[in-house]
């Protein structure tokens, strides 16, 4: 499943090897960003969430017993952090975002806005899965592993997510195609 080298890196990181952990940061900050961005839909916030995630992971690394589960655990922390950020900003965003976006009337930004709201209407897990797929072009098996999903369930999730978005964006898409 996981090659011995990779596993050794995780083990070292769990045991407090800082270099190993930095290596993990290099390889994993993008997928983690994909997850937090999927949930938050905002780059700055997503970056903050990733930073929180990394620090938190470093501090509580001893909680992981099995190095194999390290990536999934990291993703879990990322989701938690993103959710925390999401909760904190909510009261502001609900009031401000529509007004801020209202004046923009250009075609592309209209589509963008619709896309944004369509994404927002999806369940959190679906958004995380989507962004992992589109940012990182990960294969389904890896995504399932990272998000702690069972084998083969991702296909249904992504199918449903795409279908629901396409239905919401149908008019905009049609205009774009034509």
């Amino acid at each position, binding site marked *: 499943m996981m090659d011995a080298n990779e596993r050794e890196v995780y083990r070292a990181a769990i045991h407090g090897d800082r270099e190993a952990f930095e290596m993990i940061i290099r390889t994993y900050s993008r997928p983690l960003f994909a997850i937090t961005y999927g949930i938050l839909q905002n780059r700055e916030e997503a970056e903050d969430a*990733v930073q929180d995630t990394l620090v938190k992971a470093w501090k509580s690394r001893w909680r992981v017993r099995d190095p194999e589960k390290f990536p999934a655990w990291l993703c879990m922390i990322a989701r938690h952090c993103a959710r925390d950020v999401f909760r904190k900003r909510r009261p502001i965003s609900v009031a401000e975002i529509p007004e801020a976006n209202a004046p923009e009337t250009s075609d592309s930004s209209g589509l*963008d806005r619709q896309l944004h709201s369509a994404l927002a209407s999806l369940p959190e897990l679906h958004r995380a899965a989507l962004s992992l797929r589109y940012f990182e072009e990960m294969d389904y098996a890896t995504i399932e592993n990272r998000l702690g999903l069972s084998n083969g369930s991702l296909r249904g999730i992504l199918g449903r997510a795409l279908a629901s978005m396409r239905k919401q964006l149908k008019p905009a898409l049609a205009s774009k195609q034509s």
Partner: protein
Amino acid sequence: MTIHDHIDEFLAADLHSELSDEERNALHTHLVECADCRQAHQETKAMNKVLNEKFENEKPNLAFENRMLAHFRNRAPERARVFSQFPFNLLYSRATQLAGVAALLLALVQVGRIITGEHFLGNRYDSSPVSLEQSVRPMSMNERREEADLAKRDEVRAKDIRNRALKATGDSTVATPPPPVAATGGSARAEVAPEFHEEKAAPGRNIPAEGVAQNPVDTFRRDEVSSTAAEAPATGNPALANQKLIRNATVDLEIVSFDQAIQKITAFAAEEKGYVATTNSEKQENGKLKGQIVVKVLPENLDRFLQKIRGLGELKNQTLGTEDITKSYFDTEARLKNARVMEQRLIEMLKKKSEDINDLLQVEKELGRVREQIEQMQGELKFWDSQVQFATVTISLAEKDLEEAAKYLLKERAQLAIYTPEVEKIYNDLKSLASPKVQITNAQLDRDNSGRVSARVSMLIAPEESDGMIAKAKAMGRVENFQTQTERVAQGGEGMSENANTKRDKVELNITISRDEQEQAFQQTTLRIRTSTVDERAKKLRELAEKQSGRVRSSSFSRDPEGREFASVAVRVPMKNYNALMQSFDSLGKVEDVSVQRLDRTGQVDEANAPADLQIQVYSQGNIVSSDTGLIATLRRTIAQSAAAIMWSLRMIGVAIAFLAPWIAAIVVIVWIVRRIRSRRS
């Protein structure tokens, strides 16, 4: 699973190239066939494109990783390796975790112990009181050493003083005043002091009460005593001849003649160079003598004397005792000497110092006391001398058959119960019989609420009148239970005697008079008569009884729910008519369950007139089917019981719910909490 139903999944997977070849082929064939799905395919493709563009725009730039790293380094700075890594490594070992848990538990236990005030250091310090004291009262190291040193020094000093004291007075009698050191305090020093006191007290024992210092005069006197007392053992120490022994003996003898015995004892005493000190004698009621005689003989002749006495009669008891008074004798002697010296000194003092009247008085008083003591001691010594010079023999004499009875008294007691219809008349008749020879000691007539009358007369009758009197009383009514009792009482002794005379005493007669209804029946019979007409037969039964001069004592009638009738009749007839009555019952119906109980009493005088009780029950068969049986009754009962059963089970269900409800509530709450936690995590 058809592709059409899951077209969304297939389309997405196709675009993400996650379909197997087989699946892709199937999808494309379906797309050719299905217009809707083709449409969806087009839209999904567009959607995919839009999404790709969108996310391409939002992708973090190249410096993203470095930014993250920098930030991480900033927020979680590297600490010295050893310190940061070591605890984490420790945290990974199971042993550390277990140890941690154990330590936590231990800590909790200790906290609990401290809170509850239990001591967990064990009893190490409880064994010796001294160290306990030390632990209670904290003391610096220096202080403690000082204390110990002091104690040691005191001990040495005490020993020194003791040795010196012993040397000075020999080891017989010592009364040095206690060294002042011992009196001063300090916990360690106090330990030495009592020991010393004890040592001192032991040799001082020979000097009685005076040895204890109480006032200045006393102390001064005691010094005198101790200085002279040292000489005592020199003179007193034992040559055997000088032993002071008091010998005495007691002898119990049974002899034939008291006077003879006294004569002989006096003769024996003279032979052994002794004398008769006292005699006393006492004459018993039966003419026998007993007494005591005290003889003094020389101690060396005592054994021979006793031997002789034994020949006088039967020896019942003998004790021989020797008391050694040597020690107290010589002690007293020594004290006497001291007291004399003391007396002399006081007299000298009296002569010299005649200025201060107070001193004079004091000395005079003391002189009086000492003289009194001297006299007392002299008396004591004299008494002992006399005791030692002669042995005392106390002889108790008793003539044979001392206990024989002097005379006898015949006591007679008689008891009589009379049943009569007229209690009061008999009672008065009995009372009128009184005369100087017939004395009534107690007469009593009782009538209770229910009209029952009984009387009791006790009398004392002169012996010669007694037989006639008893006969008269017997003639007054139906006599029941006549008892006499004669007792021969020995007077002035006990046991048999051939020549003592016997005297008849007054006769005590107790008479109880009661109405004849109260008399217990001589014979009791119960029987049942079955008949169809109870009421009529019961009436006839009464008639029959009256014909046989019987009396109906009680009767009752009852009917039970099943229609049976009962009549109970209790009849009393004289014994002579009993058989006739029993035979007449046959005409009434079927006689069943006859049981007869006869009371054979001793002293029964008049059997023919004695009462016989009959308890007759007349009854009918009643209905064959009672209202408690039958179909309707069964039905009723069944319904009632099933209703009761339903009520019972309802109640039980209620109980069960009451028992389970809290558990169910608790489980529900726990499940709810667990679910909530889970949903929050995911």
